[in-house]
């Protein structure tokens, strides 16, 4: 009896903290939309954040994407060969990368890099009162720190996904050429021959949502960081964990939506 009671209590608390989290995040997102489209616009800071969030993430995304394309191709080859459809390898890899693996893996790595850095940066700014200092310096810290970062993450992730896709496909071409010889031109033709708009566009659009999720969750966690250095660590860590989970949930929703719209 006692255990069930304590279980219930734990569940209750968990539930409350979960709902509290969801509610807080929703309010935070509401505040973002409320503030994002009103002056003043922090254009210079936005561009700086785009540079930091987008351009600076490219080496990491590029490396992982390249390896991903290469490994995926080499792993797929044996089964493709056993079915006698080795020539379909570029088509399969192309569709897999463009539709699903590219956006999701890129978003997850993005969450790991950017989500944690936003969480830690804003967290430490909160803890050391830098956010308060901004506010007393006549700056709306929400606009200056949160809006710019969320917008930058939302707009930069799709770009990273596109470049990641391109690099993945290049890696895949290398992978194909490790065990065979396919000209780049033929490979490219085979990839594109089997792609449709319904492969590219839903994947492209969902990466905006992934970017937004990483940005808003990272900012939410950092902006509401608790005091102390421990708080900063928790912010950074939970930003990555929560945004990774949300990416998968969004991915699930995206596939349902595209399915419902008949775009599959």
């Amino acid at each position: 009896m006692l255990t069930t009671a304590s279980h219930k209590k734990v569940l209750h608390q968990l539930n409350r903290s979960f709902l509290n989290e969801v509610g807080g995040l929703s309010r935070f997102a509401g505040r973002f939309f409320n503030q994002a489209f009103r002056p003043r616009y922090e254009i210079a800071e936005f561009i700086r954040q785009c540079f930091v969030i987008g351009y600076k993430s490219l080496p990491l995304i590029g490396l992982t994407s390249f390896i991903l394309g290469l490994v995926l191709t080499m792993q797929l080859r044996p089964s493709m060969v056993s079915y006698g459809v080795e020539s379909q390898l570029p088509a399969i890899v192309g569709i897999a990368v463009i539709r699903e693996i590219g956006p999701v893996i890129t978003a997850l790595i993005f969450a790991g890099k950017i989500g944690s850095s936003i969480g830690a940066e804003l967290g430490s700014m909160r803890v050391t009162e830098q956010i308060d200092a901004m506010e007393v310096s006549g700056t709306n810290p929400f606009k200056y720190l949160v809006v710019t970062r969320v917008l930058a993450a939302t707009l930069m992730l799709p770009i990273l996904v596109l470049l990641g896709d391109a690099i993945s496909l290049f890696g895949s071409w290398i992978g194909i050429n490790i065990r065979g010889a396919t000209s780049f031109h033929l490979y490219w033709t085979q990839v594109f021959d089997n792609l449709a708009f319904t492969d590219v566009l839903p994947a492209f659009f969902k990466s905006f949502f992934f970017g937004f999720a990483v940005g808003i969750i990272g900012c939410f966690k950092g902006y509401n960081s608790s005091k102390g250095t421990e708080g900063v660590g928790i912010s950074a860590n939970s930003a990555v964990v929560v945004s990774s989970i949300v990416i998968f949930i969004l991915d699930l929703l995206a596939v349902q939506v595209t399915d419902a719209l008949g775009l599959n």
Partner: protein
Amino acid sequence: MAKKVVSNVKLGVFVLAGLLFLVILLYMIGKNRNLFGSNYVLKARFENIQGLVTGNNVRFSGIQAGTVKRIDIINDTLIEVTMVIDKKMSKIIHKNAVASISTEGLVGNKVVNISPSKIPDALAKDDDILPVKKAVNTDEIMETLYNTNSDVAIIAAGLRTTVERINKSSALWNLLNDESIPENIRISFASIRSTTGKAVKIADDLDKIILGVKNGEGSLGAILKDTSLVKNLNDAILTINKVGNEADSVTVEINKLVKGVHEDVSQGKGTVNALLKDSMMVKKIEASLDNIQKGTDGFNSNMEALKHNFLFRGYFRKLEKQKKKAQ
């Protein structure tokens, strides 16, 4: 400040590179789907489109020519397929080009194939409706095969009667036994006999095959897909037919010849006459016999091919087994 400009440039390059890839991606797909560039519309009406969907490729003699844009059901037996064709093809596709639906690869997508006709016609214009060729599907192949079989059966029967006529021809028998008739003529006639004997055997084999197919022996029907087989069979039947006709005329000639020889002999006109006749008639007969030989040989090889065709292999193996059992 200089640092800032550099980082802005880098950001610009980064963003543009990403967007460039997107544009390339969309353009390449669009190009494959004929969304860009000028094109025109051709239509074709099928009874059965076999799962063709919009967006499937249209090929002209194997060259990518366009895509299927729309599929409309006109009535319960007719489906109109609207195809968007590259403008470049407008100088190549004629009105009498034939559209058909087939499958790309073993398990691939459906495609519309437009094949040129050898007969000249005007070029196809926008909104023209192309004639269609019924798609080759398994059921239809089987049906064709059954028809062909019955044809073969009839022909084989004819062949048999002809051959039997030759065999039973008393005139021929007499001739062969008649030592007054020159040796070479007799040899020729003997070869006619053996040829016709072969023909009988062929006819028997054919009968058996037909029986087998009709009874649905093995999984023959289910995997029968090779249209070339049907064509071969048809060719074979034509040959047999020809052989039969030839044999018929040979019989007539032989009868004539035999009659002439007998008359000559009985009227005591001597062998000179016979030899004269011989040189003309025999040549004719020999040529005919040659043709028969060739025809039956051809048919034989067709049958041999048939035996080796994997579809029929099982059937022939079974036949052999039965033979062994019988022994």
